[in-house]
């Protein structure tokens, strides 16, 4: 009797674990299924080479490049903010700051990541854009710049937290050897500790990029809804995620080609983030045991 009970429990726990596999399978199947139908109507060559994305207009073009450029532009701006700041924070906290300061500040920093993204969108549109407009009057009301900057603030804790863990895991003997040679903390940090923790730092950067590419509400609110192939951060752009939101808010018939465009856009987004996440997982697994 006891054996049966144990067996049943184990199987139901296994089923719960298998649900996660079903989720991945479901995502790939749903995106793949709708995308295959989409690409039977729209040539995949047009999809990757056409420079216009206008599925909701009468003159329809299905080129993903404008959405892709919008996504990469906002993500690039976000990373340019989050990377230097996040790395400096992690080095400061791990190499300079007293333990008590580190312990109080880390949960506070993580609060930055806990704020709902729709709130950051409000921040970008109502506070940051008017502020930037007072410096560059030509800045459009919707633009990639303020969305990117605010997104960068949001992902600072992703970079700083994981990097700090990696720096912290570097054994003290390495630092002591460097101090013994007469190095300052700064020299030790950049020439010894950072190289030793490089795999963890790279993982944190990749995860931050993946997070920025998939971020939706900030760009949907503050970057605009005009797909255009440009690297100009001062004009409205549209990201893949913002396009999906735009279509979802409208009245698009299920089964129409407009409906399928969000899945075609979605599978492009999924492919990017999947690639980045897999790379970061590989790096993490490979170097995990280095200093343990």
């Amino acid at each position, binding site marked *: 009797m006891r054996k049966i009970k144990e067996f049943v*429990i*184990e199987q139901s*726990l296994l089923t*719960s*674990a298998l*649900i*996660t*596999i079903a*989720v*991945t399978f*479901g*995502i790939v199947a*749903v995106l793949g299924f709708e995308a295959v139908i989409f690409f039977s109507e729209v040539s995949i060559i047009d999809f990757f080479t056409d420079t216009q994305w206008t599925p909701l207009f009468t003159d329809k073009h299905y080129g993903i490049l404008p959405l892709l450029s919008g996504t990469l532009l906002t993500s690039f701006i976000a990373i340019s903010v989050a990377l230097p*700041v996040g790395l*400096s*924070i992690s*080095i*400061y*906290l791990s190499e*300079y*700051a007293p333990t008590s300061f580190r312990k109080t500040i880390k949960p506070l*920093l993580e*609060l*930055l990541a*806990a*704020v*709902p993204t*729709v*709130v950051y*969108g*409000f*921040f970008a549109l*109502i506070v940051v854009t008017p502020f930037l407009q007072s410096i560059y009057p030509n800045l459009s009301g919707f633009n990639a710049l303020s969305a990117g900057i605010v997104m960068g603030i949001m992902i600072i804790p992703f970079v700083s937290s994981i990097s700090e863990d990696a720096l912290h895991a570097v054994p003290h003997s390495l630092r002591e050897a460097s101090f013994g040679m007469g190095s*300052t*903390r*700064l*020299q030790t*940090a950049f020439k010894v500790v950072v190289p030793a923790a490089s795999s963890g730092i790279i993982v944190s950067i990749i995860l931050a990029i993946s997070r920025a*590419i*998939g971020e*939706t*509400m900030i760009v*949907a*609110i503050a970057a605009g809804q005009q797909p255009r192939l440009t690297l100009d951060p001062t004009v409205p752009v549209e990201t893949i*995620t913002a396009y*999906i*939101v735009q279509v*979802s*808010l409208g009245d698009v018939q299920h089964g129409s080609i407009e409906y399928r465009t*969000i*899945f075609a856009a979605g599978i492009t*987004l*999924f492919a990017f*983030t*999947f690639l*980045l*996440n*897999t790379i*970061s*997982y590989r790096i993490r697994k490979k170097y995990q045991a280095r200093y343990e």
Partner: protein
Amino acid sequence: MNSIQKNRLLDNAFKYWGIFCTIIGLVLLVVFIGDILIDGLSRIDWSFITNLPSRKAEKSGIYTALMGSIWILLLTSLIAIPIGVAAGIYLEEYSKKNKFSGLLEINISNLAGVPSIIYGLLGLEVFVRIMNLGASVLAGSLTLSLLILPIIIVATREAIKAVPKSISDASYALGASKWQTIWNQILPASSGGILTGVILALSRAVGETAPLIVVGALAYVPFAPSTPMDEFSVLPIQIFNWISRPQHGFIENAAAAIIILLLITFIMNGIAVYFRNKWQNKWK
């Protein structure tokens, strides 16, 4: 200036730069919350909480959105917590180290990195269309449950991993079965850590906007949901809707609703941090 002095100077310069970077994000957050309080605090009163949405900004309230968020929170907890904790227990206590468990692990790590809007597309096709649930609270909760599952699983595993082996050894030595050991010893001992993870995951679910928009949650619902099959709105969607309107009155409403949403998020995070600190001291 010789090179020693130069290096010392650089060292100190970096120290202040590091302090600046650490503080700047938080300062911006404080400035921003201050700005929101100025914009929205005067708008919050009892009628703002209990009024239905309206075309006139000054008559609009968040009642339906708040109720929608509470429904989503409850249903998502009911679905995601048992599955997530069970999967975490399986991976930590039962699964053997082989190709299959490696696959499960890489899969969960990947799921944690999938953008939330992709979960929305999954929910739209599977729950709304194929299972024919419509744009209901249930469809929204199922979608968010899948979204937060990886967070709960990882937190459960970490919490179980932290329980000293001596506890389960003692339980087995007294003749307890594997499940008795897990249920009576390991789960109670790791409950603080699991709870922390669960609350953080739920706080994420409360703030999610994009997947629910994709699933079809509405910006305007005249009534609060009364069954899981009803249409719904949630606070973040209500905020998003108000932000996209040009009239200034709606911006004030958005700021006021943001105050309520942030209050909920920060309280949940505060509780989670409290449990984490309490639990961390347990095994030291």
